[in-house]
């Protein structure tokens, strides 16, 4: 259990930083936010202002409601370079965006950075979409990628990375809070990412499990 806790603690720290930086992006998302998270989320950087403005605090989803103030993943500058490090940073970002989609139902970031022919990616988006219709929401499902290893020396435009993907248990809750189906158990798996470098950066073109 220890490694898992430490990872979530770390990513939470990164996450809350991201949330502070990208609050506007958060507000602009077209995704309907949870009713319960409709609290006034406007916050200036809490350290600078003496007034006790409530900082939006990340709250994972539970049986009572959706996740709140989920940190919006930010594409780091490193992920815009055509290099082994670049594809690693991009793969890390892509799974953060996937995790964000699980937690919020907002697949727009994933869509933007995924090519049209990735079967696995499309299936994930579809399942997430189905899980967020009719007032349903997802509890859990967060994804961590403790190991991301770019493949050295692959082509100029297309590169690969091997990613360890750890996902929490996933519950789908219905509008009344009851379970939609049996929870899907947590998983710890490895995936291969194929990404293509385009003028505007990396696009994930294929994704598969390593068996």
């Amino acid at each position: 259990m220890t490694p898992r806790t430490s990872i979530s603690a770390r990513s939470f720290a990164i996450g809350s930083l991201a949330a502070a930086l990208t609050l506007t992006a958060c507000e602009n998302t077209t995704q309907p936010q949870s009713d319960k998270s409709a609290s006034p989320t406007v916050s200036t950087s809490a350290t600078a202002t003496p007034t006790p403005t409530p900082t939006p605090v990340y709250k994972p989803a539970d049986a009572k409601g959706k996740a709140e103030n989920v940190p919006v993943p930010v594409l780091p500058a490193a992920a815009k370079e055509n290099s082994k490090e670049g594809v690693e940073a991009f793969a890390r970002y892509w799974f953060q965006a996937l995790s964000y989609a699980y937690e919020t139902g907002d697949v727009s970031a994933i869509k933007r950075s995924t090519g049209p022919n990735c079967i696995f990616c499309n299936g994930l988006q579809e399942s997430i979409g189905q899980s967020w219709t009719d007032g349903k929401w997802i509890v859990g499902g967060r994804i961590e990628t403790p190991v991301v290893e770019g493949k050295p020396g692959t082509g100029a435009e297309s590169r690969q990375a091997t990613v360890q993907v750890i996902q929490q248990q996933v519950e789908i809750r219905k509008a009344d809070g009851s379970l939609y189906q049996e929870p899907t158990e947590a998983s710890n798996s490895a995936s291969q990412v194929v990404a293509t470098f385009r003028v505007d950066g990396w696009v994930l073109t294929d994704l598969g499990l390593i068996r």
Partner: protein
Amino acid sequence: MRTVSVLLIGSLVVLPWVGFAAPANAESKDPPINIGYRKNGVRLGSENWIRDPQTGAIVPAPPNFASDDPNQYKAELQCHVDDDVLDKKCLPGQIQCPPREAGGKPGTPVIWKVAPKAISNPTWVDWKSGNNGPSCLYDQKPEDLLQRIAERVVSDFRNLPIRPAELTAQPSPHTLKGAETNIFADAVEQQFDVTLLGQQVHIVATPVEYTYSYGDGNGLGPTPFAGGPLPEAEWGQKTRTSHVYQQTGDFQVSVTTTFRGTYSVNGGPNMPIPGTGQFASPPQKVSVWRSITRNYADNCVVNPRGEGCPGVP
């Protein structure tokens, strides 16, 4: 039709329902959603990758790749502070392994960890047993017990009474020269419970490959294809495992089935047994005949004394 649908509704009401019993209100009319990351990948059958055993690189899996377990496992001994002082510093609340029989020694609890084997330095997560209970090892030296079992299980696996495939030829026992004779194997997964170094070891043997010997100097395999039966009307058709005999005579057909195994120690995860076991089926005799086709101008009514007509020698 109406009775049928009424019956269906009735059974839904009567059985609200084994799988859905735990989450209250889960309605069976909602289509299940494949929401897990890994499950989605398995279901979609998107391109799979494997670690190339030679180069160590991750490469696309070949077609027909039979995926075995993509995970690796390790056991962490609990209550194991230093090598000499076992069982002394168990923290309160830690899982306990009571003695197996009255007056016996308590066991050493282990926590199994799982991680994908494609990752060299992975983050491990707890492996969950079916009954969620602790795994316990009962031995004087639990530290290297699993290593000793791992070494022993390789040879023990090859000596298990694994039932080989059943071999069938169609048609048989007589078939025709120059025709496709459908020969197929039927082997099943088998499970064994053995005691190994004092631990309960559960072994599952799975047939993975077949090597056919047709008895005329020809053979097939090793191949993952067991073949299968043809309906009688289709006898003579080519199949993945069929064979054409070029000579008449009696031939001994045989098949050797390659089994792969997994083992689990005291309820722990199923771990692969290195290597494979070969198990031969008893050979079967196939008699190959030739057929001669002759054409006749008349039928037996017109020419009752013609060759092949009833009563004609």
